[in-house]
């Protein structure tokens, strides 16, 4: 008796769920008009959902909402992409209720593309026409190496340069290195003076990738059919061997990045420089408050004297998710958010976002001297670096796994087991097998 009742109850619950599911699916199917490849304006008023974790983004969006009563944008937030929001995007895509727009860092964009989670904005004229406004390499990041696809609007970039303790370098008579060779010589002198020239981070593979990027290496290439994985190419090997030497000779510290020890190493003057991205300016200012006024920024050391090449670390785009019913409006908003002066200024003020447009680099807020860096106009250095980043560097579709594998290998290398190069070799193999396991074609 009881059992029958329960069975009936379960059945009713299931049926309800199914019916609701049917409604939901039917609803979105008719409104969406198939795959909506075209980029056409909607008839009436539109409300867009936009997920981003940038602090203060609400205020920027509020400005848009005031100016565009017919295209209202609702902001939704969450933690940093890799700390949970990407995972959510994937489940939302799975459930068919992804927001219209989402913030996606460049290195994750391929993963979403491969899962068919992004609308191709190449259908939107305004987007295609905007290519010239962006720093060339950031555009390369959103086309993912294809000629007929645009999978997001570049938002910010992370050109790299050398932060260094101007006071300590001067006191010890060490020249600011302009090549990696000089950097190593300086490292020896710094070690003699009792410090470390820099900290080699094993957890954040993005920095290392930035070094490889600067050296002209390509970890991934995609010819439209298949992915080529090349973690152990000539340039990667050069970079890995270089840092391996520094590690072997105990010339660099190896604190885990962004921990208290790491902050302390910088704050106490144990570590003297950091080749990092533009946003690193804040990391130092917040992590090493006692050293205010003693830092300066110089262009990254080069592999050959006289070269002008920069790496990049970080940066993100705003993408339109598959299934959005308002691609046109979404694209319009994304473009405004990342190209208009008022939005870029607001983003820079609220979250230190470093714009991806060439015009954005001359924002008034980026022309001022920074007190923490002795009044130096540090953004001039980064603006120059931004123009020197190789536009062809592409991220693979399984970066999470690649990062994890390289990081594991690097961690053992730092403790004396294996080398950085061996770490890259094993990550190369596991990346290929991960791609194959997900049926993503790999070129031999």
């Amino acid at each position: 008796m009881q059992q029958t009742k329960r069975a009936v109850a379960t059945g009713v619950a299931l049926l309800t769920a199914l019916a609701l599911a049917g409604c939901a699916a039917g609803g979105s199917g008719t409104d969406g008009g198939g795959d909506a490849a075209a980029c056409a304006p909607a008839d009436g008023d539109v409300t867009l959902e936009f997920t981003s974790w940038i602090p203060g983004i609400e205020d920027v969006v509020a400005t848009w909402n005031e100016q565009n009563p017919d295209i209202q944008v609702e902001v939704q937030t969450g933690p940093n992409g890799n700390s949970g929001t990407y995972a959510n995007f994937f489940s939302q895509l799975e459930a068919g209720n992804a927001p219209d727009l989402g913030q996606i860092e460049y290195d994750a964009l391929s993963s979403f593309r491969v899962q068919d989670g992004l609308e191709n904005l190449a259908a939107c004229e305004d987007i295609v026409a905007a290519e010239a406004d962006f720093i060339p390499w950031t555009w390369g990041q959103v086309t993912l190496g294809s000629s007929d696809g645009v999978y997001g609007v570049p938002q910010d970039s992370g050109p790299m340069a050398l932060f260094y303790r101007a006071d300590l370098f001067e006191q010890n008579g060490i020249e600011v290195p302009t090549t990696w060779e000089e950097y190593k010589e300086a490292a020896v002198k710094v070690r003699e003076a009792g410090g470390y020239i820099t900290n080699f981070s094993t957890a954040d593979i993005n920095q290392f990738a930035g070094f490889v990027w600067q050296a002209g290496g390509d970890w991934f290439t995609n010819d439209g059919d298949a992915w080529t994985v090349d973690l152990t190419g000539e340039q990667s090997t050069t970079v890995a061997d270089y840092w391996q030497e520094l590690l072997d000779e105990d010339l660099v510290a190896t604190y885990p990045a962004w921990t208290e020890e790491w902050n302390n190493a910088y704050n106490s003057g144990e570590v003297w420089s950091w080749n990092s991205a533009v946003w690193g300016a804040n990391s130092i200012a917040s992590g090493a408050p006692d050293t205010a006024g003693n830092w300066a920024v110089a262009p990254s050391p080069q592999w050959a004297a006289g070269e002008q090449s920069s790496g990049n670390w970080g940066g993100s785009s705003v993408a339109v998710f598959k299934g959005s019913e308002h691609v046109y409006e979404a694209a319009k908003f994304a473009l405004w958010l990342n190209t208009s002066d008022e939005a870029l200024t607001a983003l820079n003020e609220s979250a230190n976002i470093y714009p991806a447009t060439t015009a954005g680099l001359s924002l008034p807020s980026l022309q001022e001297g920074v007190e923490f860096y002795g009044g130096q106009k540090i953004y001039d250095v980064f603006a120059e670096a931004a123009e020197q980043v190789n536009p062809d560097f592409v991220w693979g579709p399984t970066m999470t796994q690649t990062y994890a594998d390289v990081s594991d290998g690097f961690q053992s290398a730092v403790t004396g087991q294996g080398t950085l190069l061996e770490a890259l070799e094993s990550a190369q193999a596991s990346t290929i097998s991960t791609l194959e396991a997900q049926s993503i074609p790999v070129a031999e």
Partner: protein
Amino acid sequence: MSLLTRTAGATPDDFAPTRRRGPRESMLSRGASLLVMGVFTLYFLVPIWWLFIASTKDRGDLLTTPALWFADWNFFQNVGDLITYNDGIYLRWLLNSLGYAGIGALLATIVAGMCGYALAKYRFRGRETFFNIVLGGVLVPATALALPLFLLFSQVNLTNTFWAVLLPSIVSPFGVYLSRIYAASSVPDELIEAGRIDGAGEVRTFFTVSVRLMTPALVTVFLFQFVTIWNNFFLPLIMLRSQELFPVTFGLYGWNTQLNQIPELRTYVLVGSFLSIVPLIIAFLLLQRFWRNGLGTGSVK
């Protein structure tokens, strides 16, 4: 519990008989247990102490002064900054947490109490099977259910709502288990019979008679569930997208992932974490009275 109270209330008299029987055991075991307790007390209290100290410092002092002692007293300044940052979103999160945990734990306790009571006091077919299934539920980690729940809630458009976090929280298999065990031993069948003879319905008997006898178990279920919901992190992470709905744990986590860009968030996260444990401490202090009294009553009887 009994060990704790005995040791705490120990007087020299208590040890007199023991000493006659065997002094070695008493000295050694007492010393050892004190040591273990001392170590664990420190283990649990030092992080809270650190958190408190860190909340009183400004950003510069945080890294440069000793971690376990005060520098300049900046606590109220920090709290002020925290609750005004981003239009006071922190207070909103705190209220949300109280809502999720308070309402969720209350409903969970009622449901689990009734369910456990029914399992203990009524005989029906499939009772053991049902109970075993509930017991199985204890073994399934909440994390494993979050994603399926998300897909389910998506179908009925309940994601990113208050309900998305509240509804799953009112299920407590452990609560059902505890309620059943406790009801079986503490609610005499005679009392229920007496209630029936006096003409009270089953529901009335439950709420007027049985609930009182089951109080210690129910308070335990409430506390457990309150803490579980308060600390639940994965479910809000999966379900929620509007920060007006975030519970405090998830909100602070979000801030913590943005430290690279917004340095002042470091202080807010610390002060915010410290303040967020205060409601838990209050709940515990208020409720443990019932808890202990109840357990005591049970044992005397």
